[in-house]
């Protein structure tokens, strides 16, 4: 019996594509919009609260608001609530900064069993790492482009 060649089957792959259930996109978008929007409203409330009660303004206010939201994101992750919101909201709870907090906090919890150094600390950024790498790279690239556009227009 001779060695067989790869039995890739286009016809079958098309059948799979046809039968595989699809995500209900209008519903997902709607859920994401509602939950994502709601998180933003909470953020806005925090912002006003910090401004009127603690008298924080400008960049400091933006930083403080983010910190409070990150804390809430981490707390809800630790309490095992955030993943349930995530199952329902999808992108709606991933995109806001609370989603970023969740993506750092959840692997830290998960890999704690392998120790504080090689587990928790090393694995903390398995999910958020790519976002940080490409987020920073993109911001640097944008900055460089912006710089040259400014030079040209001057």
């Amino acid at each position, binding site marked *: 019996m001779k060695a067989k060649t790869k039995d890739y089957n286009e016809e079958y792959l098309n*059948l799979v594509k046809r039968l595989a*259930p699809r995500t209900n996109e209008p519903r997902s978008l709607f859920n994401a919009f509602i939950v994502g929007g709601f998180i933003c409203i909470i953020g806005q409330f925090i912002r006003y609260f910090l401004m009127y009660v603690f008298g924080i303004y400008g960049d400091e206010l933006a930083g403080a608001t983010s910190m409070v939201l990150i804390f809430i994101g981490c707390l809800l*992750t630790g309490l095992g609530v955030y*993943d*349930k919101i*995530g199952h329902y909201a999808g992108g709606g709870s991933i995109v806001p900064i609370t989603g970023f907090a969740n993506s750092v906090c*959840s*692997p830290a919890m998960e890999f704690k069993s392998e120790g504080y150094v090689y587990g928790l600390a090393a694995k903390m950024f398995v*999910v958020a790492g790519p976002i940080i790498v490409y987020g920073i790279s993109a911001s640097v690239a944008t900055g460089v482009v912006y710089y040259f556009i400014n030079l040209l227009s001057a």
Partner: protein
Amino acid sequence: MGKSTIFFKNKPRIISTYTIAGPKEAQANVGKFIHETLIDDRFGEDTFEKAECKMLSSCIQKAIKNSGKSLNEIDALISGDLLNQIISASFAARDYDFSYIGVYNACSTIVESMSLAGALVDGGYMKNVVVATGSHFATAERQYRYPLELGSTRPPQSQWTVTGAGAALVSTDGIFPKILSATFGKVIDFGVTDANNMGAAMAPSACETLVTLFNETKTSPSDYDLILTGDLGALGTRLLKILIEKRGYTIDNHVDCGEIVYNIKEEEYQGGSGAGCSAVVFNSYIYDKLLKGEIKKMIFMATGALLSTVSTQQGESIPGISHAVVIES
């Protein structure tokens, strides 16, 4: 063509079984047949990996106890699981003073183990061989997908890894369900690359092994009361039926363990999967029916998707494997 089926002349028997499953599985369809259910899916251990290992070890011990045999009558343990380097099975074997044969064929490991045990017992090389496999939702999630608390959504074609383990004791004596033949499958890869769609990746191999079994045993689907597959899920089952119809067979007596194991309330979508899925369903619910004689003759075919996180990330397609045994009550 080479031969894939071996016929057992001395009819090795499955003389006892034991299953343990998590709280979610216990509340679902086959729950009341499962021998022992966990209240806490950590099983009193500090990590999920240890819990998975403990499930396997307890299953092995209690399957032996149920048979009335003593530990020193056991010749070997054949076991495997889904974790890297099959640690759960190997660490469970640490608890026992008999030979250990570690095997891996993803979710088809239970039938692979049964077939090998059947061959060892049938050939007269060994008298009592324990087979056991298991899986755990939490350990599989962390190895193959994301951290548990990450708020990601599961795609609708995905399946849910069963938290559970099943063990069976293959032996020579007594009047118990007997293994008539074993058909070892080939690795079939039709090019499915979506690691969330394992049903689709495994269905072609399931079809191939079934057709081989029918040809080599000179039987047809109607000769069996039940054709039980491992964890194809709802979508995989549909695909298998379409594929096998093209080969000239209709399998109306087909049931998939993955499809029946959950009530599909949460996000199980296509059903259960994992090495524990078929091990739990067969060794509890189905074995019970075999003992009562409600099922006379059946095919038990577990299906496995031979992927790893590395192969998936490198864009490799997912090869499927299916092994089948014919069991008569």
